[in-house]
Each structure stands twice: as structure tokens, then as C-alpha cells.
């Protein structure tokens, strides 16, 4: 309460100072100047370019990774640009890579009264062209179904000698899985297409009406995982078939004095694939020992049934699994924004919006496994006989309010105050799931209620900028960010943020910008139960809410010794230290630093050259304890503690040269980009020492990559309107990552320890793409 009062007093002081300044200055009157006939601007010429040619690509290694978001197939290539600008309208249209998976088309028209834009864009995401899977897709919508060869499954389930389903030991890796032979190769890729447009109508010079619409479709396949046990993970090529439609409508009235805007946005996501059902590679039939169930179930030393109580770890589970897919959802937002300008360069703006997100998809059953979905099991697990409700009834309502006060009452000082309130009110009714089914294999009583996470965030930010010298501003600021959340170990969390920055352009030769921010994060309302209830170590703290101190600083210096030359140096450093009371496990520190040095030279309009080198370093330290839960004494044994020091160093380099008609009738563009990374994972601590002593620890190699790209483009106009273009792209990626398992380098292995996968991973490539084009300007 007291702080609220003092905030109010401070606000009044600021307001009074601003008003006093306004009153002390002569008003800047808007003169009623009779308009003179404006000079007619010359009519802009028509402008168009047709760029047609052919392209050829050759790749070694992971071609999908080379293409990633592009389509570089051999064939014709095109780019068509057209634009016309007159005094009364402007029109522009562009078509790029017509007919390819990365094609795009944009057109916009502006008559002053009406602005219209339309676009269609297609973006591929190419995962892997040599993906393989033994699963066969038998259904898509609403249930995507994947089946495996029944005889193979039976052979694995029967433990037929010589047959390996999923390798479970190093020795078994010497025998190909039966599923490797059954796998068929396919190209795993998805496509995102967006079509939409916008209309702005200037009903009056002061009033606009806006309308936008976009429809986005995703199709293709993506890698998707599911599991039946700790030793049985599967990666499948999930089909994608979803669409989102977004509409927004708004009206805006704006004058020199202010602005008012109201609007509504609606968004609907529709997923044609409601759930996924897939066959278990190590079970052809649902495990059942036929026994009656005991109560309580799963006592050690007592055979019980009909399911294997350890089925989630040893694979004695179902023949099929079923999982839900991203649900259909909708979001509606209504908002209003106002801006009012006062004298003395003072303005206040405010925004208020209300949102509603809903999702009410039908829920899939507890399990697809008929051994568990049976009266036998229901006799003990009563809750599994039915669902508490048949649909999700999920809903989140949001409120966002923002007030900005900004003033430049005189030449020495600027003030900014901002208050933001954001509320994420999750109204999804709790769903009782104390009893649930793990991996479709084992019913459990260790579940609980679903949690609806509410978050309320209040931010107060105050900044004062002092023009301490001409073109030099010193800014001091304070921010208070408070979070009130449910379901987390800290119910409240507050960031106190102090910042100081300096920006000077006093000298025409030097621009200097620097900022330092110090943030103190403090939580309150800590609940150890929230951590311990999930089996966590009581001294664990989650890094996104734990007490911490953060320091961040950036310095940017731009030297411009002469026109057309600039030398830029920037240095940034940040460190997060998690040092709250009782914080022993989890992320302990997180540091980063970045340096960039660049030179840009543009002595005249026709020549531009630049080079930049950058280095980033990231370092984090985390701590954990490798232990069984209580009452096992391991849980409290510090000898089982281990740490991980993760260090990454990234180097970046780029150089470019643009010669735009520096040579007669010729445009030349050359670029070289480079980026590499060395990511090290260093385990430490007493647990590691004991694993080393036992001969059961091998340090993981660094994950490294090195990427470079060369692009060259030359256009020569042998006639004013006709020219020829030659282009070449070269890209090379070297990568070494222990998370990618190959039979031989570049040949994926889909059957590795504990998993049947699609083979998608991180692999090197080298790609060359060449273009020859004819150019016609009109």
C-alpha cells in the first residue's frame, strides 16, 4: 500500500513537471496556411523485370539439409517483377520461383484511398531425403494409422533366435534389425503454404479501415516419436494436414493530436489428424498373462496380471499405441488503442485487449490396449472405466493493458513511464487422472489432476534520458516486473531491473552506444512440496523462476572516418548466476559473450564492400544427482552428484562486394558467409569419478559444425533492356554430432539401441547450384 502511494506521488510529480513545462513554453501553433497548389511530381517510369533461366544443382551428402527451406531442383527458374508508380496510384507485383515448392507471389496496389495487398507463399521444410521406415501408413484422417509387418512383429515377440527387433545391447548391434530389411525409403519434408491479403480503406483523411485475411496450410510429413517402453522408442513420418485461418478487422482514426484504434482478430486452427495409432515393433499381440488382478496391484514377488507391472520398462506392453495430436483451437482478441499528444512533446498511449483461446477436442480413451481397457482391470482401477469428461473444455482468457507516458518537456530531459498488465487466466477445468495408463502398457495410480497454469505479469518501467551534451543522451532506468503464477514452485517472482545507457553521435566520426542492465530476481511463496511431489531433489530450483542475478552489457562503437566508410565494433556480455537460498541442483550459471568487428566501405553508389568477424561464447553449469527415489539412500547421497559444463564457441565471418554498374552495364554481387561451432559437454563430480573407476564412463566428443556459403551473381545488359545473368551458389557443411547414428558415414542407421527411427539426423553436405538467365527490363 505504501509503495502504491509513493508511486502515485512520483507520477504526480512527473505529470506536474510536464504540465509546468508545457505551460512555460509558447504553444507550437499549427498555422492555418492556405495550401498552395502542390508542385506536380514527375511521373515515375514503369518498371518491370523478367528474369528467366535454367538452374542446375549438384549435391553430395545430405541434400535435404542443403535445400532446407528451398527447392533447388534442376529446371527453369523465374522471377518476374512489375511495378508502376504514378501520381495517383502505385502497383507492384512479384513472382518468384514459379512452380517450385518455395514459390511466392505478392501484389500490392495503392491508390491513396485504397491499399490492397495479396500474397501466396510456399515454404518447404526438407528434413531428410533418405529417410526410411518399416511402418506403412494405413490411414490418415482423423486417425493416422501406421502398421508393421505382422510376421516380423511375431518373430520379434516370440524371441525367434537370430531375430533382432530393437537392439538392446552392443552385441545385438552386430545383427541388423528385421525392420531394417523391411524399411522403405522416402523423402521426409513438409510444405507450408500461406495465402492471404489485406485491405486498407481511407474512409477519410483521418480514418482508416483495415481488413486482413490469411489461410495457412501445412502438409507433408515430419519426424514424430512415440514409445512403448524405456527400451522401445519409435520415430514415425507423421502426416501433416492442418490449416489455420486468421482474420482481423480494425478501424483507426488519427489526427495530429492523437489516434484511436479498435480491432478484432480471430484465428482458427483445424487439424484433420486427430490422433495417431501405430504398431508396436516388439509386440504382435497385447501382453497378457491371463491372471486375475490383485488388489493392491503390482506387489513385488507376486505374479499378477493381466498386464506386466514392469511393462513400461521391459517392453511387455500393447500391440498398438495411441496418442493425441495437436487439437483444433480458436483464438479471439478484441482490442482498443488510444494515443493523445499534448504540448511539450508529451504523449500518452494506452492499449487494452481481451483474448479468449479455446480448445474442445474429443478426448481419446485412457488406452487403446484392450487388456487394460477391461473389466478385470477396472475392478481395481475404477477411474479407468470412464472419462471424467469426453472433451477437453480447455479455455484461457487473457487481458493485456498497457499505458505509456512519454515526454520531452525541454531539451535536457526525456521521460518515459510504462505500465503493463498481462493476465493469462487458464480456466480449463481440472481433469482427474490419478489413475492413468503409462505407455498403453501399465495402469498407474501415480497421476494426478491436470494443472492449469495462470500467469499474471505486471511491469512498471521508468526511464529518464538526459541530453548531457549535444547529440549525447544518458538514460537511467528502473523496471519492476512481477509475476504471479499458479502451479510453480514460487508463487510470485519479481525482477528489479536497473539500467543505464549512453548514446552519443556528437562527433560525425564516432557513434557510441552502450547499455548495462542489472536484474535481481527474487521469488516468494516457495513450495518445496511442488518439487518433492514430482520426485525432485528438494534443493532443485527451476531456472526460469529461481532467484538469480543477471548482468548484461553491450557496447557498440561505429567509426566513420570519412563518408562511405564505417568501422563497427560491438561487444556484449551477459551472465546469470543462480544463487538463491537452497539452490543446489539445476542450472547454476549461464554466461555468454559476443564480439563483432566489421568494416563497410561504399565510396560511391556503385561500389559497396564489407567484411565482418564475430565470435560468440556460451557457457553453462548445471548440477544433478543420479539416484533412485526415497527410501533408497542414494537419494540423499552427495557422492552421486554430477555436474555438466557446457561450452560453445561460435565464429562468424562474412564478406561481400557489390558492384552496381561500376563496370559498364554490369552488376556484380559476391558474398561469402561462414559460421562454425564447437560445443563441448564436460561431466564432472563424484558420480563421474565413480563411473570412471567402474569403467562405465566415456566422455562425449564435442559437437562441431562448420558452414560456408559462397554466392556470386553477375548481370550484364548488352542492350538497355536485355541482359544475361549468371549465378552460382556453393555451400558446404561439415558436422559431427553424436546424436546422429550412421551405418557408414552418411548412410543412416534406423535400428539403434532402444529405438527404430527414420534416420533423420545432422549430416554434412556440399552443394552447388548454378543459374543462367535472360533478363528483360520493360
Amino acid at each position, binding site marked *: 500500500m505504501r509503495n502504491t502511494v509513493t508511486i502515485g506521488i512520483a507520477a504526480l510529480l512527473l505529470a506536474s513537471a510536464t504540465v509546468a513545462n508545457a505551460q512555460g513554453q509558447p504553444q507550437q501553433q499549427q498555422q492555418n496556411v492556405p495550401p498552395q497548389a502542390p508542385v506536380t511530381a514527375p511521373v515515375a517510369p514503369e518498371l518491370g523485370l523478367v528474369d528467366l533461366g535454367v538452374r542446375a544443382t549438384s549435391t553430395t551428402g545430405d541434400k535435404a539439409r542443403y535445400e532446407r527451406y528451398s527447392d533447388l531442383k534442376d529446371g527453369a527458374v523465374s522471377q518476374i517483377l512489375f511495378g508502376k508508380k504514378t501520381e495517383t496510384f502505385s502497383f507492384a507485383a512479384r513472382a518468384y520461383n514459379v512452380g517450385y515448392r518455395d514459390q511466392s507471389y505478392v501484389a500490392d496496389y495503392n491508390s491513396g484511398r485504397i491499399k490492397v495487398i495479396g500474397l501466396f507463399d510456399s515454404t518447404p521444410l526438407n528434413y531428410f531425403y533418405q529417410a526410411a521406415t518399416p511402418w506403412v501408413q494405413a490411414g490418415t484422417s482423423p486417425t493416422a494409422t501406421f502398421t508393421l509387418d505382422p510376421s516380423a512383429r511375431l518373430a520379434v515377440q516370440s524371441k525367434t533366435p537370430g531375430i533382432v527387433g530393437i537392439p538392446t545391447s552392443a552385441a545385438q548391434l552386430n545383427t541388423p534389425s528385421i525392420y531394417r530389411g523391411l524399411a522403405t525409403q522416402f523423402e521426409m519434408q513438409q510444405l507450408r503454404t500461406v495465402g492471404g491479403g489485406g485491405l486498407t480503406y481511407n474512409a477519410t483523411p483521418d480514418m482508416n479501415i483495415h481488413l486482413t485475411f490469411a489461410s495457412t496450410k501445412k502438409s507433408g510429413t515430419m519426424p514424430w516419436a512415440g514409445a512403448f517402453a524405456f527400451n522401445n522408442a519409435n520415430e514415425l513420418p507423421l502426416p501433416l494436414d492442418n490449416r489455420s485461418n486468421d482474420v482481423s478487422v480494425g478501424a483507426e482514426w488519427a489526427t495530429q493530436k492523437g489516434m484511436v484504434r479498435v480491432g478484432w482478430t480471430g484465428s482458427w486452427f483445424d487439424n484433420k489428424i486427430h490422433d495417431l495409432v501405430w504398431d508396436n515393433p516388439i509386440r504382435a499381440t497385447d501382453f497378457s498373462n491371463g491372471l486375475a488382478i490383485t488388489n493392491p496391484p503390482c506387489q513385488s514377488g507376486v505374479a499378477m496380471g493381466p498386464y506386466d507391472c514392469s511393462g513400461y520398462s521391459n517392453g511387455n506392453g500393447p500391440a498398438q499405441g495411441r496418442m493425441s495430436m495437436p487439437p483444433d483451437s480458436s483464438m479471439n482478441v478484441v482490442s482498443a488503442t488510444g494515443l493523445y499528444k499534448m504540448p511539450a512533446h508529451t504523449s500518452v498511449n494506452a492499449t487494452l485487449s481481451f483474448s479468449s483461446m479455446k480448445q474442445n477436442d474429443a478426448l481419446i480413451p485412457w488406452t487403446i490396449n484392450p487388456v487394460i481397457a477391461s473389466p478385470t482391470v477396472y475392478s481395481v482401477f475404477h477411474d479407468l472405466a470412464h472419462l471424467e469428461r469426453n472433451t477437453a473444455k480447455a479455455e484461457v482468457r487473457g487481458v493485456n493493458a498497457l499505458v505509456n507516458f512519454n515526454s520531452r518537456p525541454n531539451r535536457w530531459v526525456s521521460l518515459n513511464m510504462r505500465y503493463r498488465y498481462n493476465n493469462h487466466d487458464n480456466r480449463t477445468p481440472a481433469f482427474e487422472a490419478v489413475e492413468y495408463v503409462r505407455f498403453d502398457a501399465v495402469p498407474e495410480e501415480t497421476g494426478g489432476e491436470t494443472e492449469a497454469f495462470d500467469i499474471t505479469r505486471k511491469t512498471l518501467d521508468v526511464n529518464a534520458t538526459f541530453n548531457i551534451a549535444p547529440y549525447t543522451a544518458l538514460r537511467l532506468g528502473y523496471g519492476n516486473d512481477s509475476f504471479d503464477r499458479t502451479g510453480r514452485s514460487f508463487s510470485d517472482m519479481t525482477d528489479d531491473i536497473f539500467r543505464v545507457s549512453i548514446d552519443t553521435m556528437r562527433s560525425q566520426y564516432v557513434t557510441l552506444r552502450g547499455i548495462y542492465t542489472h536484474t535481481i530476481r527474487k521469488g516468494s511463496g516457495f513450495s518445496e512440496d511442488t518439487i518433492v511431489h514430482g520426485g525432485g531433489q528438494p534443493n532443485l530450483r527451476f531456472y526460469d523462476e529461481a532467484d538469480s542475478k543477471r548482468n548484461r552489457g553491450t557496447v557498440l562503437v561505429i567509426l566513420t572516418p570519412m563518408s562511405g566508410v564505417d568501422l563497427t565494433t560491438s561487444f556484449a556480455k551477459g551472465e546469470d548466476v543462480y544463487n538463491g537460498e537452497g539452490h543446489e541442483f539445476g542450472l547454476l550459471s549461464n554466461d555468454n559473450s559476443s564480439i563483432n568487428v566489421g568494416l563497410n566501405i561504399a565510396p560511391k553508389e556503385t561500389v559497396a564492400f564489407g567484411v565482418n568477424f564475430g565470435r560468440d561464447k556460451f557457457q553453462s553449469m548445471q548440477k544433478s544427482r543420479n539416484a533412485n527415489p526415497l527410501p533408497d539412500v542414494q537419494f540423499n547421497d552427495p557422492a552421486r552428484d554430477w555436474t555438466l559444463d557446457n561450452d560453445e564457441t561460435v565464429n562468424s565471418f562474412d564478406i561481400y562486394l557489390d558492384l552496381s554498374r561500376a563496370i559498364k552495364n554490369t552488376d556484380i554481387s559476391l558474398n561469402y558467409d561462414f559460421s562454425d561451432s564447437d560445443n563441448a559437454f564436460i561431466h564432472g563430480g563424484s558420480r563421474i569419478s565413480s563411473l570412471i573407476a567402474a569403467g562405465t564412463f566415456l566422455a562425449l566428443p564435442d559437437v562441431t559444425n562448420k558452414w560456408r556459403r559462397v554466392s556470386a551473381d553477375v548481370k550484364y545488359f548488352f542492350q538497355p533492356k536485355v541482359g544475361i545473368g549468371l549465378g552460382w551458389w556453393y555451400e558446404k557443411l561439415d558436422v559431427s554430432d553424436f546424436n546422429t547414428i550412421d551405418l557408414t558415414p552418411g548412410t543412416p542407421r534406423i535400428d539403434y539401441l532402444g529405438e527404430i527411427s527414420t534416420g533423420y539426423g*545432422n549430416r554434412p553436405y556440399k552443394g552447388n547450384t548454378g543459374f543462367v538467365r535472360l533478363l528483360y527490363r520493360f
Partner: protein
Amino acid sequence: MRSIVMRAGLAIAGLVAVVGLIGTAHPTAARPQAAKAGAPQQSVAANYVGEETCLTCHEGQAYKGTAHALKSNAKTPAAMHGCESCHGGGKDHVEGGGDKAKIVNPKTLDASAASDTCTSCHNRSAHALWDGSQHDQRKVGCLSCHSVHSSKGEKQLNATNEAQICASCHKNITNKQHRFNHMPVREDKLQCSSCHNVHGSTNVKLLKAGTTVDESCTSCHQEKRGPYLWEHAPVADSCTTCHDPHGSNNDRMLVAKQPYLCQRCHVTSRHPPTVYEGFVLKNSTNANKIFGKACVSCHQQIHGSNAPSGKAFLR
């Protein structure tokens, strides 16, 4: 400690207020100092000389071919006073033989004052919240990125593309487009303004969609929007707890590699805090927590699950 820092913040605000009040005791300055250099008094209509007069000396400064030349839009300079819409009446400047002190040259103004010229018209839609926005506070004005007379790219940017402009201050961020896992910025499918409104926004970090980080990300990644029956707490909080939206050398643009990212929070018992290293990778079925999708090989529904049995995001 908290009360001390709150008081410190309030003290700063109070000090500023006092400075402001003191400043009113000397109400002589009508404009910021830097503006004095080129701020003629706009006294009467006769101070306008017309665009043709301007172009007799400044032929290369015409704005034809730009949006400012669209006369059919009543708000453009072409429909109003031409060059003098932004530079002020030119009569005194002409009669003074081109006296630079008698014409407004935004390039010589303080960044905020120069931006005032632009925002006298560009005060709606995406530009409505410019005053006091992050860039305005740091004296990064309109002319830092745009040029009315000699632009090089779309939207009258000073460079051929957005990333080049943003890189002049945010090079460590734009470098991330070259990381192993990245958004399609270097493929020209996205640009900085696809997510950010650099002119001011109601969202954090100048994000232009939604009111939180999550709402911004899920404006495109709508399959992650939910809300779900089972929610993952850090997901509900912010996507950036786990992902770096600008680019990363870790799969799926994660801020750290799996399983180690997950192990920053999951220090429970049994398999989450297992030491996942090379021996496990070569000898145990727990290798599936290290290679491929790692933890997400089982916990695929990591962003949230709609399955009744989705407690651990397994279904």
C-alpha cells in the same frame, strides 16, 4: 532488499520530476537544442516557395517514385507542400542564399526531434506507438534506418534488406541466421519484421503479434497454441525458456542440447538425472535418451498433451 530497490527507482523518478520542474523556471527554449540550428519559424503561408524552387538547387533530392510522391493520398508530401511538408517553409532559406540555418534538415536534428517530423504523419497503424518505444528511447530515430531521398531497399530502408539494417546494431542476433538450425531468414522467407515491430509494440521485445512471447510464436506455430489438457509449465511461461528464436546450433533451435536442457530442471530420480554419456550411448538402450530426438523420443508431446493419459507427455 526489494523495498530498497523500489525506493531507489522511485527516487530516480522523483529526481527527474524535480529536474523537470526546475527546467520550467527557464522556459526560454522552445525546441530541443539541436533543433535550434535549423528551425525556422513557420510564421505565414508566404513562407512556402514551392517544390520547383527547391529542386532548382536540390535536383537530386526529389522523392519521385516513392510513396511520398503519391498525390492521391492526401497525407503525402506530394499532396501537401512537397519538400516543405517536412523541411518547413523555404522562403527564408532561399532569400538567405541557401542559409542552412533557415531550413529544417532532419539529419542535423536530435534523433527524437527528427522523428517528430516523420511521426507528424506516420502516427498510426504500425507507427502509432513510436513515442517512448525502445528505439526512440535509445535515440535510434527514423533516419537511422530509413532515407526519404536515397533509400536502397523496400520501405525506404538505408540498406537492401532488413537484416543488414538491423545488423548495424544487432549483429550478434543477425549472425544467428547462419546457425545450423535457423528460421528461414537467409532464405528470404522471413525477415526481422515478420516477428518484430521495430516502431513500437504492445508486446514485449517489440514483438508485433499477441501480448506474450507465446502468443507471438503461436501466431504461426498454431499447433502449439493449445490450450491443452496437460500443460508443460515452462511452455506456458515462455517459448524462449527452451528455444532461441533467432537460431541455434542445437536441434530444433533449443538453447541447449538434449538431454542436458531437460536435465536443467528434471533433477528427480531414476532416469531423468542419469548420466548420459558415451558409455550409455554405445552400450545401453538408454542411448535413446541421447541420440535422435533424445528425451522427446518418448516425451513427444512436450508442448502439451490432450490425451487423458498424457501426464508425462508420453501420449
